[in-house]
């Protein structure tokens, strides 16, 4: 595989190889010397057209632990603000000899276009409301390490599915790996055509919680919304927020996930986010190991 553009590109064998490699990478992070020489002399460009802390830092840490050179590019303060197009930026990176481009863009499909313009690997770090495949991989890794397996797991993804690239990538990957996904949220926040996704849907969160092994809360993406998707934040929290009462309805082994950044008090209550059932900080730590695995598997071998 040369690019990682969509979770749909991952078959079960390769996805499992990523998770297994990530587990080995994770075992190295406990060491005093965390650096590996594996990608010495390779250049990884972080091309971020949208704000991000977690994902950009995570990719940067992963690349640096593998000894790659990292160039950070954010649209603010670059020639993009002077009107340079994605293609011209891509050609500039190409001329600089980037071995991999990690791209985040507000336009769905931007990484696919980029892949046609550069020789290096393109890694999708989130494109619009489309996909975020490394997030899905790190979520799958977190589920597997907490619960021991993925096949047959019942995963409920809750909230703003419509605007969520995390949800789409997770549904695709979890389906490939044999988990059963249920999407729960208000009808206005489930996308048109959700029936064709390999997942069940429900408008009633309380009905699906008791059978869940994993509950994944999605951030309500108000920056991508007008104001008419639900009546009020309070009403949303009451019907679809994960609070202490709903936490008690879960099975004893069930975990609560959130890709971050959280709206505390809206989709997730502070006491849930900080409870031992929550895997939110684990997800961040696992993100580095998973991205190391992806960078190694895409860049480590020959072309």
């Amino acid at each position, binding site marked *: 595989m040369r690019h990682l553009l969509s979770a749909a590109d991952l078959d079960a064998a390769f996805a499992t*190889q990523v998770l*297994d*490699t990530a587990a*080995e*990478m994770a*075992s*190295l992070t406990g*060491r005093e*010397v965390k*650096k*590996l*020489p*594996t990608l010495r002399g390779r250049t990884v460009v972080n091309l971020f057209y949208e704000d991000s802390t977690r994902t950009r830092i995570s990719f940067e840490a992963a690349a640096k632990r*593998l000894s790659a050179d990292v160039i950070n590019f954010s649209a603010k303060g670059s020639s993009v603000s002077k009107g340079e197009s994605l293609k011209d930026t891509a050609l500039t990176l190409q001329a600089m000899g980037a071995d991999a481009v990690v791209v985040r863009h507000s336009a769905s499909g931007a990484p696919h276009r980029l892949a046609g313009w550069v020789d290096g690997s393109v890694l999708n770090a989130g494109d619009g409301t489309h996909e975020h495949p490394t997030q899905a991989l790190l979520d799958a890794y977190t589920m597997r390490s907490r619960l021991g397996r993925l096949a047959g797991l019942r995963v409920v993804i809750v909230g703003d599915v419509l605007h969520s690239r995390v949800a789409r990538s997770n549904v695709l990957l979890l389906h490939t790996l044999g988990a059963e996904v249920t999407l729960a949220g208000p009808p206005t926040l489930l996308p048109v055509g959700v029936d064709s996704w390999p997942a069940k849907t429900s408008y009633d969160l309380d009905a699906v919680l008791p059978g869940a092994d994993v509950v994944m809360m999605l951030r309500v993406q108000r920056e991508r919304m007008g104001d008419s998707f639900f009546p009020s934040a309070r009403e949303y929290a009451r019907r679809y927020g994960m609070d202490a009462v709903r936490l008690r309805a879960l099975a004893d082994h069930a975990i609560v996930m959130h890709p971050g950044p959280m709206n505390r008090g809206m989709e997730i209550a502070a006491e849930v986010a900080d409870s031992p059932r929550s895997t939110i900080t684990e997800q961040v730590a696992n993100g580095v190991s998973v991205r190391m695995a992806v960078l*190694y*598997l*895409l860049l*480590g*071998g*020959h072309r």
Partner: protein
Amino acid sequence: MAQLDAAPTHQPGHSGDKVILTGSELGRVVDRLAHQILEKTHGGGETVLLGIPTRGVPLARRLAARIAAFEGAELPVGVLDITLYRDDLRLRAARPVGRTEVPSCGVEGLRVILVDDVLFSGRTVRAALDAMRDIGRPRVVQLAVLVDRGHRELPIRADYVGKNIPTALTETVRVLLTETDGADQVRLASDPAGGAR
């Protein structure tokens, strides 16, 4: 020990295939290596065995078992995966990464004996030395190999050698072990495609 022709995972019968060590001979070589380690380390104190995957790992375990049987010394055994330290990663598709298991005593200030099946170019051992540097600073690092087949590309030598086998570059030395291959045997095969490095 298994019989010589019970090597199901490899296809013998190449015209040039030659058995260098039979199962029982291989057992004696391991015994001798264990004795040599005991002799040179004065009884195996403060010594850790680190096997290099794949076949260095069962070899290290066997050496530890034989050392325990001869003198009762329990040497810690670990696994040192060198995949991420190889200098030939770009020559092939990305290889699967194996697990590194450092014994609980660590390696700091101890004698580490790296164990591998075949010493050839020396590049695996160089990678192992790099990997070692990232897990600690042993007092001394030594190398034990079952077979030294020559053709070094780096200034590296073994401290304990089971058997020296003069080879041509076009030949391949195949070490088979019961744990990984279902039988114990060392074969020399003429391989027109060149040796596996």
